[in-house]
């Protein structure tokens, strides 16, 4: 069931996920389309998330936006006190401006591994940190090992933060401890995207890939073909997986395996390295005292890609 509508206010709206925003001209959504989208969201009971470009919107847009309860996703450069989610592309970060905020850090794997200190510092100030590894598909045996060590090292910082009374939220490490089931990309299932052209897409990535690949528009409404394939039950690998924090990005799935319901080997391996690091983190925190007493242990497993387990059957 659809619950969320993401509205890209401009073609240059910031990316908050794996997809890249092409560097092109600005194209602001038409004001009438914005009004129509808000009206549709009210009718369909959808929560709106507005995604902003790095420039200030005209006043009349802000007035229309404020006619509905919503969340704002803004790039760091345009951050204002009302931003609910701040996206970060790069490492020149003023941590003070991010204090208490939800931050999305988009980075290549090599950059992430080279900026351990910066990530630790961020974790100490933000309310929540989501790291999006933008070149996940290049995960190799070599950087896989390095990533595993990196997760464990940052995990030690998370333990220290907990000991100091903080409750850092970090998608790569703490989400798996908190979750009881899969909680990942809802694109096409719970979530739909409106692009500045007035058409709907499964997610922003599908729009930037091909604007003709729409799933409806403001006049026709939504028309998501094969919508069941965006649901967990229709994903043979994912439905029996317990790396519940995995982003399970349907756009990446489509790019790497040509099917929205099938993750790549690299996606699975990365998610399982994170899962296993979460397992270690949970054990470490519990050695310091009672922690999440209602949550079971995370089981030890002997694989990094559930596809391989499926093939053994």
């Amino acid at each position, binding site marked *: 069931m659809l619950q969320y509508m993401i509205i890209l206010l401009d073609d240059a709206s910031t990316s908050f996920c794996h997809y890249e925003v092409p560097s092109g001209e600005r194209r602001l959504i038409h004001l009438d389309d914005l009004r129509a989208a808000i009206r549709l969201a009210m009718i369909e009971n959808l929560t709106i998330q507005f995604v902003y470009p790095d420039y200030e919107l005209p006043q009349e847009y802000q007035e229309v936006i404020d006619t509905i309860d919503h969340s704002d996703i803004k790039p760091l450069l345009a951050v204002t006190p009302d931003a609910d989610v701040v996206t970060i592309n790069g490492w020149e970060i003023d941590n003070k401006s991010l204090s208490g905020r939800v931050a999305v850090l988009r980075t290549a794997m090599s950059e992430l591994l080279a900026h351990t200190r910066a990530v630790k510092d961020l974790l100490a100030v933000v309310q929540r940190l989501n790291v999006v590894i933008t070149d996940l598909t290049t995960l190799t045996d070599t950087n896989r090992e390095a990533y595993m060590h990196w997760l464990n090292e940052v995990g030690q910082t998370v333990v220290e933060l907990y000991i100091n009374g903080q409750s850092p939220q970090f998608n790569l490490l703490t989400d798996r401890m908190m979750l009881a089931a899969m909680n990942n990309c809802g694109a096409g299932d719970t979530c739909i995207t409106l692009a500045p052209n007035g058409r709907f897409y499964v997610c922003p990535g599908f729009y930037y890939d091909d604007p003709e690949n729409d799933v409806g528009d403001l006049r026709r409404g939504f028309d998501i073909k*094969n919508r069941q394939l965006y649901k967990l039950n*229709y994903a*043979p*690998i994912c439905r029996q997986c317990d790396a519940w924090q995995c982003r399970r990005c349907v756009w990446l799935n489509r790019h790497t395996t040509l*099917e*929205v319901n099938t993750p*790549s*080997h690299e996606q699975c391996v990365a998610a399982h390295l994170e899962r296993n690091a979460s397992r270690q983190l949970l054990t470490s925190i519990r050695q310091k005292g009672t922690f999440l007493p209602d949550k079971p242990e995370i089981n030890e497993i002997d694989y990094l890609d559930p596809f391989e387990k*499926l093939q053994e059957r």
Partner: protein
Amino acid sequence: MDDIKTTESSWQSGIAKNITFIVTKDCQLACKYCYLVGKNEKERMSWETAKAAIDYILGHEADFPEASVVWDFIGGEPFLEIELIDRICDYLKTEMFRLGHHWFNSYRFSFSTNGINYHTPAVQAFIKKNISHLSVGITIDGTRQKHDLNRIWKGGGPERGSYDDVVRNIPLWLEQFPGGGTKVTISSADIPYICESVLHLYSLGIHEVNINVVFEDVWQEGDDRRFEEQLFALADAIIDGGYYQDYACSFFSEHIGKPLDPEKENQNWCGAGKMLSIDAAGTFYPCTRFAAYSLREKKPIIIGNVRDGIDRNKLRPFLTLDRLTQSPQQCIDCDVASGCAWCQGENYDAADTPTIYQRATAICLMHKARVRANNYYWNRLFRKLELEGEREDYESNKRTVEPQNC
């Protein structure tokens, strides 16, 4: 949609890797039901491409752990490229031996041909050289009328059927491959000729007729009833004529028309993804049906090439595909689901989105008609055998049947 008795073409079924060389996209014929919409005379495989494919495959033995291999050659019409095929097969044999490959002496060369060039010296020399490792099927659709309805020569001018050009080679073929079976394809216009065509093929000495209705959405209102009537007539003819003792027709199988268990019988029907198909450009496909020349609506699904190898991520959807995940509820709940087949390539081509996870159901009514006729056949046959006291003897000597993928 068919179950057939064990045949040469199903050699090592289930444990053999099937590797297909699309040696040419050309064919002498322009069959009206042919799913190959992009046939042409230009795309012929070069020796360099074929060699590169072989070197890649044999050089990555660990990636191909199957105990045996079927080297399949298709077109268009594969025997148009007999010189290339002969060179490929010679190279395969010497390389498998030189490398000590586990497929050496556990391989087969397989052909499905229109039969037109079967008698030519080049083809005959190839057959004689490789006969102990060879499967050849000739496609003949039945009577002259039925065959020439669809299987016509390409080119301008008045339509010219190919029956006479094929049937003259049947005796030679059966002499060399006594158990050879033929493949018959049924489209809407062929329905009135099914019974007489199968009987005609039996009369030519072909003991095994593998017959399929096409998966494409070509069916007209009332086709299922007409199909059923033809199968009733065929059932009567086979039983009354005693053909059931020595001949087989894949339309009739004891194992079709039953509900399927959602857990124990959840496997995919189609072997796409477990196979490998290579075209003239050296591009790899999960099955020939995913090459551009096979697709009406969709882009090809490419899983690699002879230079870069196989992108295993592209195989994951194929290898994790199961029956329930791709089937609509009507198929999951169907009381006569067993034996109802699908082609992953046609599913993909007909799907609403570019996915292999949407099962096409164009053959639904045809399958149900087949099940009704099938029930009639077995009930009548078994009663006859019981009344004649031959049931036990029949059961102990009956031919083994197994599902045919496509």
